[in-house]
């Protein structure tokens, strides 16, 4: 069945995009990640312009984090204060991100910057995750108990001023690293069309030593707000959010996520992390090839102003 996308200005087969949403939803439900880092590249590789792809994935991330965020909130697994400070940074970061996005787009360098950033961040995070997963996988095989010890508090980040007591996280830390963290992930998320949960969760654990019971909920709450803001800003600045495409992705995504979550619960944690690491690295590799292989056409055309 064909559908005309009013913003992307393309006629597409709706089952392709429902399926794409479902596949990414399945993976995100299985691993408990947002899936933006998979969905945005898939859209770009399928022929949607990077600008529309990045902007349209933001409401999809909002939809996929909403129901999870509500359930974490009910179970009191979100630290409201910590989320607040992260959002303060995130608002600034999103705003900066949209400005940079618009600027890169008019310079004609948006595509290459998106590719380079995906290679860098996915490569880095994927590499770290792979190392971590392999270690715990090997430890489990040797029959030793997994290392659950929380790191000691001799981090220089924690010595900074403006300390605030975060009660649900049982933390007393400076708000500077919290706001900076929110800012940088908000910036990246807005430019790259990712929620950034796969960066936020390890950062909260390893940098700020946030206890694991509130990490995911807090990250979700933060992502929900910044991506909602990014949706509005992308609509205002670039007019690039395609509501029809977003609906296809959302419907596919929420259904896929349910089946993914069931499979995910049946799998072991270290196996899941290993697969996720390999998946992240595969996407990074795909972008790497994109950057270095000769393009099909040396030339490209775009409208001088407005949306192409």
């Amino acid at each position, binding site marked *: 069945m064909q*559908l005309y996308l009013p913003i992307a200005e393309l006629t597409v087969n709706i089952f392709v995009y429902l399926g794409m949403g479902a596949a990414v939803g399945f993976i995100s439900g299985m691993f408990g990640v947002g899936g933006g880092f998979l969905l945005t590249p898939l859209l770009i590789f399928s022929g949607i312009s990077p600008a529309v792809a990045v902007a349209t994935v933001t409401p999809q991330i909002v*939809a996929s984090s909403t*129901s999870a965020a509500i359930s974490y909130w009910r179970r009191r697994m979100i630290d409201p204060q910590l989320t607040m400070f992260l959002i303060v940074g995130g608002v600034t970061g999103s705003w900066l991100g949209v400005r940079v996005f618009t600027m890169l787009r008019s310079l*004609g360098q948006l*595509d290459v910057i998106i590719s380079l950033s995906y290679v860098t961040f996915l490569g880095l995070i994927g590499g770290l995750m792979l190392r971590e997963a392999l270690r715990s996988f090997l430890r489990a095989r040797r029959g030793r108990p997994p290392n659950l010890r929380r790191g000691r508090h001799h981090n220089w980040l924690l010595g900074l001023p403006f300390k605030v007591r975060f009660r649900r996280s049982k933390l007393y830390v400076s708000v500077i690293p919290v706001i900076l963290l929110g800012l940088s992930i908000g910036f990246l998320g807005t430019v790259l069309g990712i929620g950034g949960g796969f960066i936020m969760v390890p950062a909260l654990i390893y940098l700020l030593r946030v206890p694991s019971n509130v990490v995911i909920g807090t990250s979700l709450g933060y992502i929900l707000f910044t991506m909602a803001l990014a949706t*509005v800003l992308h609509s205002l600045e670039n*007019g690039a959010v395609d509501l029809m495409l977003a609906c296809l992705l959302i419907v596919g995504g929420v259904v896929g996520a349910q089946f993914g979550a069931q499979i995910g619960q049946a799998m072991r944690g270290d196996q899941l992390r290993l697969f996720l690491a390999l998946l992240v690295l595969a996407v990074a590799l795909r972008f790497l090839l994109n950057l270095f292989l000769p393009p099909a056409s040396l030339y490209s*055309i775009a409208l001088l102003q407005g949306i192409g």
Partner: protein
Amino acid sequence: MMRFLLALALFSGLLVCGPASAEKLVSTLSDDAVEITSNFTGSNITVFGAVDGAKSASGERDYEVAIVVAGPQMPLVVRRKGQVAGIWINTASREFYNVPSFYVIHMSENLNDAASQQLLARYKLDFADLGFSRDASYTPQDEAFAKALVELKKQKELFVKRGDAVTFLAPNVFRTTFHLPSAIPVGTYHVSVFLFRHEELVAAEVQSLLVEKSGFSDRIARFSTEQPLLYGLFAVMVAVFTGWMAGIIFRRN
């Protein structure tokens, strides 16, 4: 405006040539508007034409026809990739100001085979003759960018030239059908019909064809450009509501 100029050209042509070529060209489109609805997959438009007062006594067909469908003009930037430290990156760009978003040329068979370059150039019946305007500083080497632009447009089926596409149903009645692909830009299109005999323009006519978004897809596109803030907020509401509903539906199971 274009219609007026052509009418003027036609009129002066008539004055010069006198009654010897007092043929009248009549043409019509199968539709005068194309509506891009939610299930738009492209469209076909047929142009019919007849020559009134044709000197067909001899019975031989000596008319040739060219039909051009031109979309609204847009300023474009053409970018060329080059390798920087092994990475393919846009390194050069040129801007062209009046590129037709869509340009389809259909010609009758003999015209395609025998027309002179001057004739093609005068009536813009070849992509090389479109002559996109550009900065005065551009050098002849920049022509490579203009050529690449035409090639890219051809790949998207937005620039098409077909040599044997106008068929004569009778010596003075002709027809052609052109295809509008799904990725067509919206705006006012001009359909020009040129009638030639022995390399000379006998008559010409221009009609407009409106291509517009319609129905639901039109409403969304308008909403997005006219009320971008509300549109963004609405998108967030749809997303939150769907996510919340999904949470409720699937929790029961």
